[in-house]
């Protein structure tokens, strides 16, 4: 599947609606970080990655590791919309017996490659996957989505060193730089700056983009997919809560539920397009 940039924009907003409705039914969810990363996830699943919902295990598939596992509230509707399972299941989110909840379980969700949720684990797991692909001369790529706050974790930097030591040019990290973690604006918690220099110093190629501008997202992911002898990281500047104007950029909306009135207004706006 290769949607155009215009189609991807529309698709991302459609999935944002699925996220908000699902979270509304569940009574709560990680809205902020799920919405900020939606353009990246949509581009990956509807254009960039070589995947087939009919054969989720096909050997030459590209891999997606959701290192920031709490973005499952965004990830699960992406997989549903892409056809890995029936969208009718979304209202079971967080319920006992459902295939999915706050953090993804690889044995329960079709298309999910790794069980994540504890921050800082996904990138080193992705390093293992990328290295094993190289060992098999398999040309598939590994995309790993991290939260910005998540990169406070030391294991991210252990993995960053390991990936560059082994020249993993089949590994593409994406930092969803929405400038917020859970307790506040990230600069007031622990700043990541100078973020580009840090990744470069660890041996990575750095591409900086507006992560809520679909044309830039697609361009950067296509760029990053051309191997250059080292791992690549996309620093994607985003807005936490992107697409719900009333909460955008507000760290208090890391986790929550909109309530029916705000949800209705947001759905109406999104149907008109999150970028106006």
């Amino acid at each position, binding site marked *: 599947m290769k949607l155009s940039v215009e189609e991807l924009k529309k698709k991302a907003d459609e999935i944002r609606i699925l996220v908000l409705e699902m979270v509304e039914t569940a009574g709560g969810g990680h809205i902020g970080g799920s919405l900020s990363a939606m353009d990246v996830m949509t581009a990956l699943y509807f254009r960039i990655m070589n995947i087939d919902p009919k054969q989720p295990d096909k050997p030459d598939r590209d891999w997606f590791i959701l290192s920031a596992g709490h973005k499952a509230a965004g990830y699960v509707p992406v997989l549903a919309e892409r056809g890995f399972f029936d969208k009718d299941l979304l209202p079971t989110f967080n319920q006992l017996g459902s295939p999915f909840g706050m953090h993804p*379980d*690889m*044995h329960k969700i079709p298309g999910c*490659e*790794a*069980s994540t*949720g*504890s921050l800082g*684990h996904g990138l*080193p*797991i*992705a*390093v*293992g*996957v*990328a*290295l*094993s*692909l190289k*060992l*098999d001369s398999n040309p598939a790529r590994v995309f790993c989505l991290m939260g910005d706050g998540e990169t406070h974790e*030391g*294991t991210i930097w*252990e*993995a960053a*060193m*390991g990936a560059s*030591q*082994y020249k993993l040019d089949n590994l593409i990290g994406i930092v969803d730089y929405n400038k917020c973690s859970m307790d506040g604006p990230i600069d007031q918690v622990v700043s990541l700056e100078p973020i580009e220099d840090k990744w470069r110093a660890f041996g990575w190629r750095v591409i900086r983009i507006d992560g809520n501008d679909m044309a830039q997202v697609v361009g950067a992911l296509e760029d990053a997919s051309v191997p250059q002898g080292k791992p690549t990281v996309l620093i994607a500047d985003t807005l936490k809560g992107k697409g719900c104007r009333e909460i955008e950029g507000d760290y208090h909306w890391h986790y929550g539920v909109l309530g029916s009135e705000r949800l209705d207004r947001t759905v109406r706006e999104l149907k008109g397009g999150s970028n106006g």
Partner: protein
Amino acid sequence: MASTGLSLVEIEQMSARDAFGEALAQAGEQDDRIVLIGADAIGSTRAAAFLKKFPERTFNFGIAEQEMVSVAAGFALRGKIPVATAYGFLISLRACEQVRTDICYPNLNVKLMATHTGLSMAPAGTTHHSTEDIAIMRSFANITIVAPSDALETVKAVQAVIAHQGPVYLRMGRGSLSSVYSQDYEFVLGKSIEMVSGNDVTIIAYGIMVKEAVEAAEALAKQGITARVINMHTIKPLDIEAVRKAAVETGAIVTAEEHTIIGGLGEAVASAVCESAPVPVIRVGLRDTFSAFGGEDDVRKHMNLTAQEIIRAVGKALAMKRGA
């Protein structure tokens, strides 16, 4: 021993850690899915024998044990059989969460091969001793825990662990294990081995304490007490049937381990006994204290990990059995 390509005599002459390296290298020959993942200790863990044969399948991540364990999970996701090797305290403490969440929870086929466990790095002190690793690992669902008692058993354990599907913590010492087996035998994961038969009391041990247990049984025999000795090389899943049988047939149990008595084999056995055939269980091990440093034998003596201590414990167990 045809499958290892090593003769019994050759293995007996090896230290347990050399035997580990050789067994791993042999396994690598038989199965090209095996990859070795290390954290700047491949040389001292003797896994270097694998590295020498298969440099393209060996990956060193430097002093980054948490990354090492998560990377192993990544390899397992693609159907490889990753062997992650480091000192026991680093796998169980530094990378504890990675073991639980990245390996045990998704039930991945990762082999954690821990070396230098227990007090085997005696002069290095408590920072380098692994005396809580069994307790930690035991609490994780899906994992199998194996602790061989000599070089031959190490070779057999490596083979069995590789053949097993699922996460395993293989607990090995630093290498100065003397032989407890003088002839070949069948090693099956989860199936304990009766080293000495007896009906008055049972001593259950693993690792380096098996030898002490056998020595204790020999000394007790001279006093007319026949002690059964069980080598519980697989601590999880525990051979509950052998424990129950020991309780019913001998009426008193002593456990011995190079580990804290909290959460180790002793507690596993005590729980199994309580739930099947309650009899006294006396635990030998570190008694809620950190270890000392010094020479290997001196430290073990100081921490009461000896045949003498086992004999004392047997006395206590027998007194309780008599209702004294």
